[in-house]
């Protein structure tokens, strides 16, 4: 088991994770980071903001960076302007 800390950095400022969570190993950290990014952006989207400039930094107990996940990695983006996927619809 390993305890990892998920620190969030985006337009709303930095949010440090002081509690962390216990995981079997590092592998689950990426999907957990994605899930958390989606949850945060979904809540902001309800208020009319989609800010994908942030990132989650996953650190171990010594504060060493294990993984950096940019918000934008959590989404497939379909935008109307000259985007083929969008115009195909």
């Amino acid at each position, binding site marked *: 088991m390993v305890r990892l800390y998920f620190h969030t950095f985006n337009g709303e400022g930095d949010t440090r*994770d002081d509690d962390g969570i216990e995981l079997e190993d590092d592998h689950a950290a990426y999907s957990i980071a994605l899930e*958390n990014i989606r*949850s945060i952006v979904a809540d902001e989207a309800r208020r009319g903001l989609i800010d994908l400039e942030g990132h989650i930094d996953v650190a171990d107990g010594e504060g060493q960076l294990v993984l950096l996940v940019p918000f934008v990695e959590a989404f497939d983006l379909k935008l109307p302007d000259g985007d083929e996927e969008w115009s195909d619809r």
Partner: protein
Amino acid sequence: MIERLVRKLNARDAITPEEEDALRGLISTTETIPAKKVLVARREKLRHSVILLDGLMCRYRDLHNGRRQITALHLPGDFPDLHGYTLHYLDQDVMALTRSEVAFVPHDRLDRLMDQFPRLTRLLWFLTNLDAAIHREWEVSLGQRSGPAKAAHLFCELHTRFSVLGLAEDTAFPLPMSQTELGECLGLTFVHTNRILRTLRERGLADFRNRTVVIRDMAGLKALAEFDPAYLYLNRHAG
């Protein structure tokens, strides 16, 4: 042993000494349950219900993708599975969040209580109705309130419920759960929950640290939550 339950009922309707004795007589045994133990499993056949004497428990449902929704928090004096008396099994699991003291109430003793103490029976019915009212307010939160408002609402509710039991201070109450578990109550991931807590802290409304919630601005917190305690039926003679 049942002081919290009596206190909770007394806040709604006066309990006579005979009724208090009758409540005490419901209990067959007591047990200490370790933290994180499932006390009542979903779909398990039930022949007794449980009064929480001390500690903190929850009802929850797990989905295949690993997501957990906590659907209710139970404080001392609550009867988390009283509805199991008429339903015979539960559709959700009941788990101890902390080490908890519980008292077992065999259903045949509830049968006898119904014959001998109709008014008390009506008060127990009130308890299940109160649980349902709390569920409905949680539905409103899960469906409609913003992240910070969800957390604010839960804090207002718990402060009120702990106050009834004499377990809260004017502006603080114990909340012995992790950020992940709090998120499972609010339908939010733990990182998201962390950010929402930061928002409440930065707006000077409330602080959740070291398993304690400190309310800095009660009026502001209630306003953000649109908290109306009517659903907690704190007026006397509610039952």
